[in-house]
């Protein structure tokens, strides 16, 4: 059934829609109708705002520590999975990068590091550069990930439509981050190339594919 967004709704209908809105269940098609009503009805507008505050207050009642409130945790699981999946998307783009998820945080480690460890001293400088890239990308991605989790928690957007939009935005941000990390590794690689011809050779053998993959180059 098509909903006419211009059709007025009663205060009773608006309350039902407001409750849906408060709990992230409002049908997108209904939103204009609710908005129009709230614009014209001060009482419903005031109640809507007040209920929003009450809803936040209700969250202050935390469960007893002995109660493992899986139900609430599970609400965030989807978001966590989405954000971790997006982080993994970036991690997977970094050739040779291992990504792990433990105790609510993401860790990235360069598998390439272990391979490089057994190389000669000449490769050690490249090793250090990779380690530096590792640290920086790890810090940046962890910071980004934490920021995302905070935003997700604050947004309290629980319906699928809002969630999907948020994840798309998240993916765009992570793609940008991936490009920046790729560029960073590229800069480090160029620094390595300047360091010595031998390091340059080492880079060409081991590092170039990493930078190329991180930049998302096809070849």
């Amino acid at each position, binding site marked *: 059934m098509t909903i006419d967004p211009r059709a007025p709704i009663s205060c009773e209908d608006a309350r039902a829609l407001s409750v849906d809105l408060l709990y992230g*269940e409002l049908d997108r098609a209904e939103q204009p109708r609710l908005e129009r009503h709230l614009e014209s009805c001060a009482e419903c507008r005031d109640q809507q705002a007040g209920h929003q*505050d009450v809803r936040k207050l209700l969250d202050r009642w935390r469960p007893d520590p002995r109660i493992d409130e899986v139900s609430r945790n599970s609400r965030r699981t989807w978001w966590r999975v989405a954000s971790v999946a997006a982080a993994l998307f970036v991690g997977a783009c970094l050739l040779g990068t291992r990504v792990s998820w433990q105790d609510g945080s993401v860790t990235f480690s360069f598998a390439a590091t272990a391979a490089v460890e057994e190389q000669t001293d000449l490769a050690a400088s490249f090793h250090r550069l990779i380690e530096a890239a590792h640290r920086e990308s790890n810090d940046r991605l962890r910071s980004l990930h934490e920021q995302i989790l905070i935003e997700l928690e604050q947004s309290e957007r629980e319906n699928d439509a809002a969630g999907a939009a948020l994840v798309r935005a998240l993916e765009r941000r992570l793609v940008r981050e991936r490009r920046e990390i790729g560029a960073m590794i590229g800069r480090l690689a160029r620094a390595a190339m300047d360091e010595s011809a031998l390091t340059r050779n080492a880079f060409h053998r081991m590092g170039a594919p990493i930078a190329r993959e991180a930049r998302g180059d096809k070849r």
Partner: protein
Amino acid sequence: MTTDHELFRRFENGSPDAFQALVRSWAPRLDALAWRFLGDVEEARDVRQTALLRLWTAPRAATGRRTTWLHRVVVNLCRDRLRSRRLRGRSDGGDVRIASADPAAADAAARDEVARRVAEAVASLPEAERDVVVLKQYADLSFARVAEILDIPATTAKSRMWRALAKLRVELKECAP
């Protein structure tokens, strides 16, 4: 990962492993739900045990949608206990002081005055509204599921929620940001 649906299906086919997995999966959820009603960890665990025992013993065909049925059993058991408390004259604290019924919970709640007041305010709601608030706000179920569990139309669940929020707004006026 095995879904609840799959576990329930295997349970219906007589798999004891599936029941164990269901207990592991559902015990924390049922504990949390019962605790919101009763404010007492041990009582909440008793309710959970009873609900899971009923799941085990109930005729398979009688339970309908399992998750709804389990929630409904817990809600009904909690209602019974709260009514018993009132009848036994425990309403001098009882279900109203939901978070202080248990000493450890009281300690935890005392650390946050707002949390204590929220718990009291929720517990002081009429039963029909309190049930909706607990299932929606704290068990994080959709209004459709809340309505199914309470055997009421979804519109009724929403109007009860609205009325409950209006009452809570008054009760918690001093806590508002």
